[in-house]
């Protein structure tokens, strides 16, 4: 017996920890949303390219598009253009789209649209980058100014990180003559990046320009220039204007390097405008949309979400049955509530799904009461069990049909829903109730019937909580935890609530 208890304890511990681990893994590692109402922002980025085609030469437009990969997942990408051939190719860390046409004249408009989200991004690859480079060629006065600028930076810095931020600070210092000379009166971020690049190159510190877009609803956004450097372990991002370090989460890297955003041949007056919009999408739907790249979606493929939609609906009902069973278990073994049969209340609770609660209770009581009176009449005829049950079942069917007909004539559409009220369950309920009535008396039968309805109502209530339904359906590991609890209940030895009243006589000494 002792070993059995140990066995049981181990089994319970294993099931509960497995269930909890599964759920925790799903929530924290796979980022599966905990509630159905959790939504994610879906970013819609439109890049609109307009230019004037010259009409007498082939048109070729090359434009960088986001390389993706890091923290973002692209859901959809589209290239909208008339009479243009489109190709996308990778260049080192960038992606470039090429629109080309043999001959086109007049004003041309091309669109590039991408839909992306932050959740379910693929795992990041190990970053790598250059740690050394040659100095940029520089002569005369500028060389002296750059070196003069460099000397205090060297003094005030300890590593690449502090070196770069110190450099940005010095270059942005309006009172510094050296930086003023190097900037040459041009305070644009591009010019500043050039100067920083120059200073860093003399110190042989590599640097890369990063062109980013801010994920913020609005039109006419200009790509913002950032710089980054690899310190041997990771990329360090800096804003050349403010010296701010680290790329904010809402920035999307559009392209890297010194090249301009686009490159046009056979056209003039090109212009690119970015429009960014966001929409909300149900997080779990999103996970299903995001293709096969991330681990979350491959998980979903093997979860209940991998089933066809109609089957899913069935399982959404089925997976709640253990919850109902748990309710009965607690009410009976802890509470001491008397119900008809063990799982009849769960079946009745399922029937309530069709009829709604209040109406369901009304119908249940009505049909059961009428069925019981028929049963007590049949009792006088001394019929055998099977024929008697058949008569009651047929009576129940007729009764349900009559109720449906009446309620339809009265304009109560709700009455039609009971056609699905499980008739066999009702028949068995009537049969058992009448046996209880005869063996234990009307009082007990009434108590049992009320207990059954109470348990069914509670089970129905719990089973129809949408959040709970979603949670169990998405994290089936919860069922293992429940099995653990049920196993523990299997060896529960304490009193039932009703026994505390039953044995009250002992306390009246």
């Amino acid at each position, binding site marked *: 017996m002792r070993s059995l208890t140990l066995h049981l304890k181990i089994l319970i511990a294993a099931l509960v920890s497995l269930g909890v681990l599964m759920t925790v893994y799903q929530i924290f590692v796979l980022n599966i949303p905990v509630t159905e109402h959790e939504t994610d922002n879906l970013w819609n980025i439109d890049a609109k390219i307009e230019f004037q085609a010259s009409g007498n030469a082939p048109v070729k437009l090359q434009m960088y598009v986001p390389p993706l990969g890091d923290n973002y997942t692209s859901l959809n990408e589209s290239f909208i253009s008339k009479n243009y051939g489109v190709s996308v190719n990778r260049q080192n860390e960038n992606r470039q789209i090429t629109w080309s046409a043999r001959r086109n004249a007049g004003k041309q408009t091309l669109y590039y649209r991408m839909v992306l989200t932050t959740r379910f991004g693929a795992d990041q690859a190990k970053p790598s980058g250059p740690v050394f480079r040659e100095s940029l060629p520089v002569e005369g006065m500028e060389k002296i100014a750059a070196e003069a600028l460099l000397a205090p930076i060297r003094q005030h810095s300890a590593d690449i990180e502090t070196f770069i931020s110190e450099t940005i600070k010095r270059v942005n210092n309006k009172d510094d003559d050296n930086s003023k000379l190097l900037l040459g009166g041009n305070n644009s971020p591009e010019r500043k990046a050039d100067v920083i690049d120059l200073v860093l190159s003399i110190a042989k510190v590599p640097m890369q320009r990063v062109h980013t877009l801010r994920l913020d609803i609005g039109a006419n956004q200009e790509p913002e220039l950032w710089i980054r450097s690899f310190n041997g372990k990771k990329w360090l991002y800096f804003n050349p204007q403010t010296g701010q370090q680290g790329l904010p989460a809402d920035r999307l890297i559009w392209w890297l390097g010194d090249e301009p955003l686009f490159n046009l041949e056979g056209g003039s007056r090109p212009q690119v405008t970015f429009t960014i919009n966001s929409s909300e999408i149900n997080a779990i739907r999103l996970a299903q949309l995001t293709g096969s790249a991330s681990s979350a979606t491959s998980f979903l493929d093997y979860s209940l979400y991998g089933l066809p939609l109609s089957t899913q609906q069935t399982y959404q009902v089925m997976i709640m049955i253990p919850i109902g069973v748990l309710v009965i278990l607690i009410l009976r073994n802890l509470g001491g509530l008397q119900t008809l049969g063990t799982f009849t209340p769960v079946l009745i609770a399922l029937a309530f799904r069709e009829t709604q609660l209040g109406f369901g209770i009304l119908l249940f009581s009505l049909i059961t009461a009428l069925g019981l009176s028929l049963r007590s009449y049949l009792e006088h005829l001394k019929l055998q069990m099977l024929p008697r049950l058949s008569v009651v079942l047929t009576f129940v069917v007729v009764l349900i049909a009559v109720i449906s007909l009446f309620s339809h004539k009265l304009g109560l559409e709700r009455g039609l829903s009971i056609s699905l009220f499980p008739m066999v369950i009702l028949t068995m309920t009537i049969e058992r109730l009448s046996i209880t009535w005869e063996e234990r008396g009307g009082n007990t039968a009434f108590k049992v019937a009320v207990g059954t309805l109470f348990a069914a109502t509670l089970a129905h209530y719990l089973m129809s909580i949408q959040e709970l339904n979603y949670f169990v359906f998405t994290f089936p590991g919860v069922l293992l935890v429940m099995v653990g609890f049920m196993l523990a209940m299997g060896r529960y030895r304490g009193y039932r609530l009703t026994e*505390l009243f039953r044995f009250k006589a002992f306390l009246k000494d």
Partner: protein
Amino acid sequence: MFGLIKTWRELEAKGIMGINRRNADYVLKYNKRSLYPVVDDKILTKERALANGINVPEMYGIIESERDISKLHKILDGRNDFVIKPAQGAGGDGIIVIADRFEGRYKTVSGKIISHDEIEYQVSNILTGLYSLGGGRDRALIEYRVSPDPIFKSISYEGVPDIRIIVLMGYPVMAMLRLPTRQSGGKANLHQGAIGVGVDLATGITLQGTWLNNKISKHPDTTQPVAGVQLPYWQQFMELAASCYELCGLGYIGVDMVLDQEKGPLILELNARPGLNIQIANNAGLTPRAHAIESHVATLAKENHTETPAERVALAQQLFAAK
């Protein structure tokens, strides 16, 4: 809420056994499912009892199929009083008790006159499983009618009072006299309104009573005090109950016995899930008694020793005598 916790603590301190503990620690642990048919089927119980030389009401005959019903005449021939019951019935349903013959018909205990055809119809009902536990086919059993000893006249209303002894691994742990009342309709089931009266295991003298979960001291129909009655043949009852362990192999049973005017103590039936109200009747909890027996059995098992029913009765009487 705190009141409930207090009640819980006090019941626990008294060692009152609840349904969950009875099921988990005793019924499931000591009663092998495969042995249940022996107690559920009264015919099987009777056959086992006879094979072990245990006193039971004499069996006149069994009717197993519709064809057998024609044999009913032969079985009843020359008998004035008898009982017909379903072998797997529950709660006393489907039982006919015939007290006498009257002008070629039969007279039940309550004075109703019924014909032979009606008896055959009742037997046919029993065979189709109208009264059986699972609703499956059943057998009808015709047996000796017990006439209760007059000792119970003053504290009983109609029906036959019976004695229930809870037996754990062959050791009697608690006993109760069950007295039918007007409310119980002559039946001896507590939940139908019969009275349970605790019995001192050592002496066989009745203690207080329980009726519908309350403590009582007088029989509601006869208003006679139920306590202080010396049950005759007590030692025989105890040994009869103790020997039922060998008979059925179930470790935790309620043995129901009657005292017949002529034949003395007889075993009526065995119950694999005896009720818990016996505790109220005895004003004592089952748990400490069961623990005492379990530790005794464990020490015996270490010494590789088993005891005879008489030894077990002696131990139980020594351990559980009323103070």
